[in-house]
């Protein structure tokens, strides 16, 4: 490879060629009893693939053209080159995994080439604060930190690491370069194919990342786990409390919940009053619910929902009442993207439909504060046993959370298991 060509490659790849490929080729020479023209041929093939003059997936076909009748097994040779030389360059070349599988090999664990640290580069601490653009300039490794668990699709249709750099590139590709408003950011998060697939907690991190990128906002970052987390406020010190303290705190939480539930239930309308207003017709409770939502009557709305759940009529209402279906469809369209609106008409899990419906009514329509919201959901989901859980208790933070939903191939699916 000529120096001028070598210099066009990212520095970590240049180092890799110097430090790994050169020695590896010498070992190949002995291992496969190559002659010098064969050695030169392999050397050139590797260079052409690294310089992207040749497609990586064409390696086995090209090796067949090796001079002087190669005596060994070409597939074994190709697999060895693919695994040692090209697999570490997977992020740069792409499709190396396909090649390895095609050659009958097993795709090794992902390797990321370490970027060479210049003397000016600073080590990124586990927790840090700053503005995204400053951090990118100051810490070269920052842009490679992963923000979400699954790979994303870049503008060329290739699966790439969900790194800070690739998310920003996807954002710019989706909205164009330049500064973006909060409305545009919301549009990206709710409509871009990559962001759509994210669970809520990753969406939040992405939102903060883009906010800081656009507005130069100072945020708090934590990279102690495998994924980067971003928050507006500094994270509370992760001081391990003695077990006894945790239990005392948890007992207190439970007693608080109990008293809130009692208070909440006291404010609800008795079922017989609602039924009498509905002329003892459960289908007319839908009308009362619709009107209650319209006037923002929290207690009546929750009372109607409770009654519908008790009579096992809520799922049917979501399925067949056009008024509720339409507002739910719009809510899904805004939150998960227009193409997901159709999911409602298809074979959606009733528990997922109920989860989204309750979130829409309680959080979006009634705007309940988080504390009341989860007390209401706790109440509504514990009316009948085995009805399925929509929320879970985060024991560490001692608060309830919605079970996370993700979009997988135009379908909703649960991310976690209660």
């Amino acid at each position, binding site marked *: *490879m*000529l*120096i001028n060509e*070598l*210099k066009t490659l990212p520095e970590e790849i*240049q*180092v890799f*060629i*110097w*430090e790994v*490929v*050169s020695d590896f*080729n*010498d070992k190949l*020479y*002995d291992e496969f009893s190559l*002659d*010098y*023209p064969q*050695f030169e041929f392999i*050397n050139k093939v590797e*260079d052409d693939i690294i310089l992207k003059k040749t497609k990586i997936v064409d390696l086995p076909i090209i090796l067949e053209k090796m001079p002087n009748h190669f005596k060994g097994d070409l597939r074994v040779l190709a697999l060895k080159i693919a695994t040692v030389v090209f697999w570490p360059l997977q992020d740069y070349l792409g499709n190396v995994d396909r090649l390895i599988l095609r050659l009958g090999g097993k795709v090794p664990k992902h390797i990321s080439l370490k970027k060479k640290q210049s003397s000016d580069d600073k080590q990124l601490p586990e927790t840090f604060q700053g503005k995204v653009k400053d951090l990118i300039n100051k810490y070269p490794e920052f842009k490679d930190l992963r923000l979400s668990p699954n790979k994303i699709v870049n503008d060329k249709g290739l699966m790439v690491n969900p790194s800070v750099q690739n998310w920003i590139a996807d954002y710019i590709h989706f909205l164009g370069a330049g500064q973006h408003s909060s409305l545009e950011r919301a549009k990206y998060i709710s409509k871009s194919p990559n962001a759509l697939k994210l669970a809520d907690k990753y969406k939040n991190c992405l939102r903060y990342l883009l906010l800081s990128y656009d507005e130069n906002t100072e945020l708090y970052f934590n990279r102690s786990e495998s994924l980067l987390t971003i928050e507006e406020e500094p994270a509370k010190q992760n001081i391990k409390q003695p077990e006894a303290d945790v239990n005392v705190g948890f007992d207190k939480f439970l007693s608080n919940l109990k008293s809130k539930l009692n208070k909440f239930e006291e404010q609800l309308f008795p079922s017989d009053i609602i039924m009498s207003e509905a002329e003892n017709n459960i289908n007319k409770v839908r009308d009362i619910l619709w009107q209650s939502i319209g006037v923002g009557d929290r207690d009546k709305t929750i009372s109607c929902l409770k009654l519908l759940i008790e009579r096992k009529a809520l799922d049917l209402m979501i399925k067949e009442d056009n008024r509720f279906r339409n507002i739910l469809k719009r809510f899904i369209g805004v939150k998960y993207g227009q193409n997901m609106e159709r999911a409602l008409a298809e074979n959606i899990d009733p528990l997922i439909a109920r989860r989204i419906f309750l979130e829409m009514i309680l959080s979006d329509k009634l705007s309940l504060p988080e504390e009341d919201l989860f007390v209401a959901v706790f109440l509504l989901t514990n009316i009948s046993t085995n009805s399925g859980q929509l929320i879970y208790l985060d024991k560490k933070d001692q608060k309830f959370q919605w079970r996370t939903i993700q979009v997988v191939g135009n379908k909703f699916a649960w991310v976690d298991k209660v």
Partner: protein
Amino acid sequence: MNADDGDNLGTNYVTRALLKSATDGMDYSRLQEMDLQVPEERRLFEQLAKVATQDQQRQLLQEANPDQIKLFAEALAETGQKLNKVIMDNLTPGVKREVAETTYIVKEARRGVSEAEARAKLAELDDAKLYGMLK
């Protein structure tokens, strides 16, 4: 081949070790500023090339001109070490052969073969055979 790599090999190993420790971590990309027409600078360039680590070789090669690459490869060959593929890829066929011959002679000298004998053998070797022997 420099005379000092023959008779005074032992002395030069010591000097080279000192020089290597003195240049530990040095940025070799600056070596491209040296003027090879000035004998002292040329000699220093050769000595520095001989003690370069893989990383320093890479730094030097990145900024070097063809003359410097040639001298650099020749200096490395005089130490008998195997040259990195990137260096070999950037030599003209003539220089590549010269460098390979130098490496061969040094290797043979370490086995007790005289330079004259080594050169005689070299005359029988075509490029592919010679390069293959040095792998």
